[in-house]
């Protein structure tokens, strides 16, 4: 194997290694987003009953189906209750960046979103969400005594890693089936308006990126071009049986001028296109002889002319 081929092969092997140097992230689309254990006067279900609830968030930008997934709960080690999320309910398909709320009321007959367990108000609650293959998607432990009545344990914002107690105050309000943090502004825009009201910063950064992109292309194709020229010279030397580089340089191997290339291109075009300037003046008429076949005979394809008897 040539040395260059070995180099390319090794580069291909090393590329994934360099790409995966960063922290390995597990891609989980569905996460437990908020949990309320003791519901006395908070959100109520369709039956008008207040029960604890578990909110699941689809953090992907495509729909995710909860059908066949398992919600598991454990108050103490070795004591786990599983709720199989039924299949066949279109409502289990959660739209991108949307939520699903499960009522932990121990009454699964009330519908898909009512689990067969309740949450413990005295012990710690371990809650796990498993996919239909039994793989853990997300889990959370709500420590005992951390939540008072009508308070929830929630991620600071949807799908974030930090959790906090939502005490239903003005700043930290309980948010069933909706975003944990209401976005009433566009932080990116505000940042630009605050720090770059003139647009100079944007211009400098964006133009730098544009230039970097095209400079990278320039460097790549400069190298590719040089390699192509060298290869052409090498091939030309081989074709002329010349080994001396000086001689090859003097005879300008591989450096065909533009007009020569244009002439060759035109000749090839004419050859392939069957175009020629001088038309032949001999006209040949040859008789085309077709052998008779009843299948192609007009007589057999015509209907008989109607005649009066």
């Amino acid at each position, binding site marked *: 194997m040539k040395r260059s081929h070995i180099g390319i092969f090794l580069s291909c092997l090393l590329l994934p290694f360099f790409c995966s140097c960063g922290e390995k992230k597990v891609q989980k689309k569905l996460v437990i987003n908020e949990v309320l254990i003791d519901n006395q006067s908070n959100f109520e279900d369709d039956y008008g009953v207040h029960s604890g609830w578990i909110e699941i968030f689809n953090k992907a930008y495509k729909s995710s189906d909860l059908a066949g997934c398992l919600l598991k709960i454990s108050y103490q080690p070795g004591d786990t209750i599983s709720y199989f999320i039924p299949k066949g309910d279109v409502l289990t398909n959660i739209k991108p960046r949307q939520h699903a709320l499960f009522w932990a009321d121990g009454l699964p007959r009330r519908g898909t979103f009512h689990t067969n367990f309740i949450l413990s108000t005295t012990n710690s609650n371990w809650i796990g969400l498993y996919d239909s293959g039994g793989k853990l998607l997300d889990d959370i432990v709500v420590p005992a005594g951390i939540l008072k009545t009508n308070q929830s344990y929630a991620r600071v914002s949807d799908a974030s890693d930090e959790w906090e107690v939502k005490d239903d105050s003005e700043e930290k309000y309980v948010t069933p089936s909706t975003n944990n943090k209401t976005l009433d502004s566009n932080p990116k*825009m505000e940042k630009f308006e605050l720090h770059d009201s003139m647009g100079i910063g944007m211009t400098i*950064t*964006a133009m730098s990126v544009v230039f970097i992109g*095209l400079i990278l292309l320039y460097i790549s*194709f400069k190298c590719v071009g040089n390699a192509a020229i060298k290869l052409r010279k090498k091939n030309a030397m081989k074709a002329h049986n010349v080994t001396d580089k000086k001689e090859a340089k003097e005879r300008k191997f591989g450096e065909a001028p533009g007009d020569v290339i244009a002439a060759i291109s035109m000749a090839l075009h004419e050859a392939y296109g069957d175009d020629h300037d001088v038309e032949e003046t001999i006209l040949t008429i040859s008789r085309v002889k077709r052998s008779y076949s009843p299948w192609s005979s007009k007589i057999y394809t015509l209907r008989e002319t109607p005649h009066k008897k």
Partner: protein
Amino acid sequence: MGEFVSFLQNNLADFWTYTGFYNATPQHLIMLCVGIFFIYLAISKEFEPMLLIPIGFGILVGNIPFNMEAGLQVGIYEENSVLNILYQGVTSGWYPPLIFLGIGAMTDFSALISNPKLMLIGAAAQFGIFGAYIIALEMGFDPMQAASIGIIGGADGPTAIFLSSKLAPNLMGAIAVSAYSYMALVPVIQPPVMRLLTTKKERLIRMKAPRAVSHTEKVMFPIVGLLLTCFLVPSGLPLLGMLFFGNLLKESGVTRRLAETARGPLVDTITILLGLTVGASTQASEFLTMDSIKIFLLGALSFIIATASGVLFVKIFNLVLKKDNKINPLIGNAGVSAVPDSARISQILGLEYDPSNYLLMHAMGPNVAGVIGSAVAAGVLLGFLI
């Protein structure tokens, strides 16, 4: 009998309220005149007829006055009307990448590959985008709107539509019409700027003939181009991905039928739909606003800045280039990615000063680099602002 006549009269009176004559406003008439003017420019002056005829006729279609409260479902902004369904290709942004697929399949990047330094001119011309962005901010537009307006300076209709559909959908009609109008007016806008910024000596510079480019290099270009640009700006993927894919179809040499479909029937179909619906989106009630006038003004400015920055960049670049390797600054304007019009302007102006100096091949380099540059710029703006 009298009752029947009165019934007929009421019916006719009712019908009258549905007609265009009853619902017409001066704004409608202005827009209809604009549409007719576009068609006139396209047919008589041959200013980008492929674009201006669909857009001009689309303006007529979109500005036929009708009773908007009757729920006829004929207007482009009425949900599920035929025009609205066709317009979804613009609002959801899938027409522009398909146009880019066609552009890729019809573009020969040889000039750029043979002389890669011309890519930098394509980058420099993107100053037009950011010049207009700064002025738009000064005029009171918010950053998202300013970015959408600025992209007109990229002189790339599909890119302008793609970006404005994401950042400022309410301004998209005005931005698209402005971008396409100025692309059609490149022969009017660019030459005075080019003459103003160059000396006679500079206009006579003869450039080295481009070298022959091998098939391998041509095949490598879309692959390397995609990887480098999209690793840097993944938000430009829909446009750049399709552009390079189209080019690979062309250059691979084994997908001739696909390349021909992409650069022929497919791009023609999308151009018709895009032009017609963009034109129709200029419904007078939505379009004739002060913002639209400002956008048209900024669009012209962005084209001028883009042309000037391309030309000036070449002049500066020439200071560091060897004597026999200088670039004719008349190809600087071609960094504005109105393919191939701006390259044609370089050629025409070059021939005006030296009838044997053919600049078209050289100008195609920055021209196609401009397409890549404006798509990268759009990706950067999208990444920063969305």
